């Protein structure tokens, strides 16, 4: 029995296997189920966000069978894309990093596929490749990207003309920036965001869209707006943060500069709807935060090393540490 024997056998089986006709009734039922699940994922609300996080952490511990052998968790969490040494690698629950074959900036994940942007080439989801891309953002609906002619392509394939750089996008709209002015393009039209009481002088930093919320950092402050441009909340500090994909929670943690200025260390979960906050213990300086498939990830730095944590409303647990500091989320 040789490898050519295996090739021949597999080819022969492939070519001769009887193929049944499509069971259209069963297929239509599956399509309806897939649509329902997709809508349900989009509709996760404020209350369920914490529950989802807690559930994820609950299943994380390894299961061990009667023989003491490690068994895969019943719901294996999707692997997390991280950047190490210029390469995109996938972090498993066991802390093992495996190659993804991708390079460049991590845009996000769509349907479990990592999407990257490298030298103008947008790769993913799946095997799709698009060149001439200058910016891209992933959400549950898919990828929104801007081409080098500034036109913006939405997840459903529609394109929108634009004159300014795309700086953020999500399910409910996208944001462009002209000098210091941010404009939200949403279902209710285009709206300029007023960045604080002295908006014209504020320099926008990072911008994110989560659900119907736009989170903007500007001059050491955080502003939360809805896609119609209305300001929902704002606070000093917390610029190292991330809005959850459903827009329910803005998570932030003190970075080195903020801690030097007197901000207390730790992770804070800000409930956008109620304005209440909840603190979670985390001793190190935050470098970056991101939400990945309902999981909150926090990257911290201590000396030259970096550690990636997964956090929920109760605690953070370490996923992996890079002693040389070569680890990032994007």
């Amino acid at each position, binding site marked *: *029995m040789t*490898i050519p*024997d*295996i*090739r*021949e*056998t*597999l*080819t*022969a*089986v*492939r*070519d*001769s*296997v*009887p*193929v*049944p006709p*499509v*069971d259209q009734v*069963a*297929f239509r039922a*599956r*399509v309806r*189920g*897939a*649509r329902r699940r*997709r809508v349900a994922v989009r509709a996760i609300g404020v209350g369920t966000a914490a529950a989802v996080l807690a559930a994820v952490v609950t299943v994380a511990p390894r*299961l061990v*069978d009667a023989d003491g*052998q490690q*068994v*895969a*968790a*019943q*719901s*294996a969490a999707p*692997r997390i894309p991280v950047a190490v040494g210029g390469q995109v690698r*996938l972090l*498993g629950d066991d802390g*093992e990093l*495996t*190659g993804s*074959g991708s390079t460049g900036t991590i845009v996000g994940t769509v*349907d*479990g*596929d990592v999407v990257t942007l490298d030298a103008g080439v947008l790769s993913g*989801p*799946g*095997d*799709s*490749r*698009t060149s001439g891309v200058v910016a891209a953002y992933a959400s549950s*609906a*898919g*990828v929104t990207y801007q081409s080098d002619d500034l036109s913006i*392509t939405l*997840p*459903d*394939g529609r394109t929108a003309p634009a004159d300014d750089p795309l700086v953020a996008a999500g399910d409910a709209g996208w944001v462009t920036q002209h000098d210091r002015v941010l404009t939200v393009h949403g279902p209710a039209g285009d709206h300029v965001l007023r960045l604080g009481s002295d908006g014209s002088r504020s320099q926008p930093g990072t911008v994110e869209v989560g659900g119907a919320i736009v989170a903007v950092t500007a001059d050491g402050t955080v502003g939360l707006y809805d896609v119609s441009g209305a300001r929902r909340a704002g606070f000093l500090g917390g610029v190292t943060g991330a809005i959850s994909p459903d827009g329910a929670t803005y998570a932030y943690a003190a970075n080195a500069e903020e801690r030097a200025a007197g901000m207390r260390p730790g992770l804070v979960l800000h409930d956008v709807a109620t304005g209440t906050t909840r603190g979670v213990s985390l001793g190190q300086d935050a470098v970056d935060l991101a939400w990945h498939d309902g999981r909150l990830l926090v990257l911290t730095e201590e000396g030259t090393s970096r550690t990636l944590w997964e956090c929920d409303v109760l605690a953070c647990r370490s996923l992996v540490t890079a002693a040389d500091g070569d680890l990032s989320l994007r």
Partner: protein
Amino acid sequence: MGHDASFSDFMAARWSSLYRTAYLLTGSHHQAEDLLQDVLARTSVRWRSIRDKNLAEAYVRRGLVNQAARGWRRRGRESLVEELPDAGHGGGVDVHAEHLALWDEIRRLPPRMRATLVLRYLEDRPESEVAELLGVSVGSVKSQTHHALKRLRAAMTEMEPMP
């Protein structure tokens, strides 16, 4: 061409080819149909967001492997299949006797091992790509391949007639 018509055309054109791949991955007609319908249903819902429709088949094929791998993880630790999932010699596949015997042994392999062989030797994918598709390390792909070949060689040697 509208969304529904476009996807229906794609599905009608590629169903047979995709089914054959699903069958090789699962070794079972029932599981193959279940897997393919599931992946195609999700593709249908996302059809408009697939920018380059020429890559749709590759997208579905990747989905087949990903979904199958998720199923194996859900079922936990893999074990040798004592009873073949489909009744009938070779699962009803009409091939030469020597191919049939080897296919029966391939079907007895744990699903991840079988998929590794299909991806490596039928689809000629490099080890790194197989590792990415199955969500395992390259070392694991090498190990799975090694053990699969070892099991098959042992099984096929046992079946050879005594001189």
